[in-house]
């Protein structure tokens, strides 16, 4: 039996300000879309691993494993909730892969959910701040935009990174999102719009920040013999890395670097027997525009300080040499924090098997790609390398 974990299905609920949908509804919609794509039934699922960052603070609901099983109409299956801040869904996905690799299960649902608009903007900011060091940093007034702003300032000072480079990330990802019917933002934006948006924390403006999003996403993970038997395209999980890092930003040797991302991506590449230059598509965690640049440098795709210029030059555009965030990324597609990692992997499933619809398909038809899902300021990172098997 070939126990290499493979992904055969991906689905999303609507993503956006979905006031009419509860977390339960979001999970149900994502699960239905996922099993439909996989060509299976909900009752075929043997276990559930679901990521959720802080549903308790957003909605008051905990016990999310059982809640998801109930929402999916399959109470009785083992169901676990995984939390790793914005990397929660990657943590869940890696647990699902372990279920498959160990032989414990043959068909596992991995996904994530976050219902963020049941609280005010302030409430959401406070809930998200729970992923930072709460007792000391948050009480000094640190918010996530502020922490990433400090990283941006450090990056700018070290390499001469410019506002124009940050803007280029936002413009590119919104352009990609405009081609994604599931994206929260369906329209392109110009550099002028980004540059005239309100300053949140210097130098990050509103359009440097990913939005508040309701949403869920799901994946069906199976061993390769099951994947092959479906007769449908699938992706093989050929490399995985999951790393944590220190909670305090001020304790980092270099404020703008993400050692956890570096370690996680190196582990995944080693397991896959590949280099980062072998990767043909990337979904990376652009919770803020500066994050996309620092991650692309941390994984070694670009030398430190070079990702901004590469973005300006179009290297990371969908038609570029290294396509990044064809889905629209967190910036354009939306960022329901507990679900984001699952949607990144799902986008790669579509891209690496030629299933991305219409103009969203990367023209070079990639067959191998990497997802980088980050929690906090890089305090948790899930790196996943997928290889497409087309039928």
């Amino acid at each position, binding site marked *: 039996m070939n126990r290499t974990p493979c992904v055969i299905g991906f689905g999303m609920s609507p993503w956006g300000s979905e006031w009419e949908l509860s977390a339960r509804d979001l999970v149900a919609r994502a699960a239905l879309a996922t099993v439909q794509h996989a060509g299976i039934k909900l009752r075929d699922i043997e276990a559930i691993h679901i990521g959720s960052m802080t549903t308790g603070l957003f909605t008051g609901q905990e016990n999310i494993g059982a809640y998801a099983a109930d929402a999916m109409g399959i109470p009785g299956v083992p169901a676990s909730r995984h939390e790793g801040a914005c990397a929660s869904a990657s943590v869940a996905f890696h647990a699902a892969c372990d279920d498959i690799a160990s032989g414990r299960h043959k068909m596992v649902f991995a996904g994530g959910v976050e219902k963020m608009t049941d609280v005010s903007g302030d*409430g959401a900011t*406070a809930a998200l701040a729970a992923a930072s060091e709460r007792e000391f940093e948050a009480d*000094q007034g640190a918010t996530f935009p502020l922490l990433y702003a*400090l990283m941006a*300032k450090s990056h700018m000072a070290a390499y001469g990174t410019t506002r124009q480079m940050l803007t280029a990330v936002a413009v590119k990802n919104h352009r990609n999102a405009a081609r994604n019917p599931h994206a929260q933002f369906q329209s392109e934006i110009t550099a002028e719009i980004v540059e005239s948006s309100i300053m949140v924390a210097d130098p990050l403006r509103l359009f440097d920040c990913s939005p508040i999003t309701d949403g869920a996403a799901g994946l069906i993970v199976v061993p390769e013999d099951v994947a092959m038997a479906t007769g449908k395209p699938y992706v093989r999980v050929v490399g995985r890395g999951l790393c944590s890092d220190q909670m305090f*930003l001020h304790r980092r040797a270099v404020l703008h670097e993400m050692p956890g991302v570096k370690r996680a991506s190196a582990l995944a590449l080693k397991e896959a027997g590949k280099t980062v230059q072998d990767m043909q598509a990337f979904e990376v965690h652009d919770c803020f525009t500066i994050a996309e640049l620092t991650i692309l440098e941390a994984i070694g795709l670009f030398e430190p300080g070079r990702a901004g210029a590469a973005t300006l030059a179009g290297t990371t555009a969908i038609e570029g040499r290294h396509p990044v965030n064809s889905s629209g990324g967190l910036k354009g597609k939306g960022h329901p924090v507990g679900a984001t990692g699952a949607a990144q992997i799902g986008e790669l499933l579509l891209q690496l098997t030629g299933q991305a619809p219409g103009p969203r398909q990367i023209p070079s038809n990639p067959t191998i790609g990497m997802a980088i899902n980050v929690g906090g300021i890089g305090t948790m990172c899930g790196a996943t390398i997928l290889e497409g098997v087309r039928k």
Partner: protein
Amino acid sequence: MSQTIFPPRIKRRSHVLYHLQAARFPSGNVVYPPCEIDPSTGETNPEIIELPKTGTVIADTVQRIVPGWMTLNGPYHVVVIECDDDKHTRLMGQLTGADANVDYTGWRVQARFRRLNSNNDDGTIIYGFKWEPMVGPAFMHT
């Protein structure tokens, strides 16, 4: 939006916030705030020390949209400071007496005991150190 800050949480942090305490481990590593285990080396048995009340700003940003849990009304600086101890121990703090339109990176700063926050449901007030720029060219870090 305010938040609940129970007195025990304030009490257990008070020695750190009121005295700027840090942990010095046998290897010489200094960690702020103090902890039982050095997160870099895994060392234990730290000595509690007080950090100097002066330092240099190494990164500066201004939060323009103030979260509801902060008492402050206007934009505020949050900075990363290297203290003037032999290890240049870093910490994060707010600036006080600062101009929101100035980037204080490279400036010398001194600690000032201030109210940090009081926006909570229990009437508790959190005190601790903010950092004041040392004004004048003589204090500029070169």
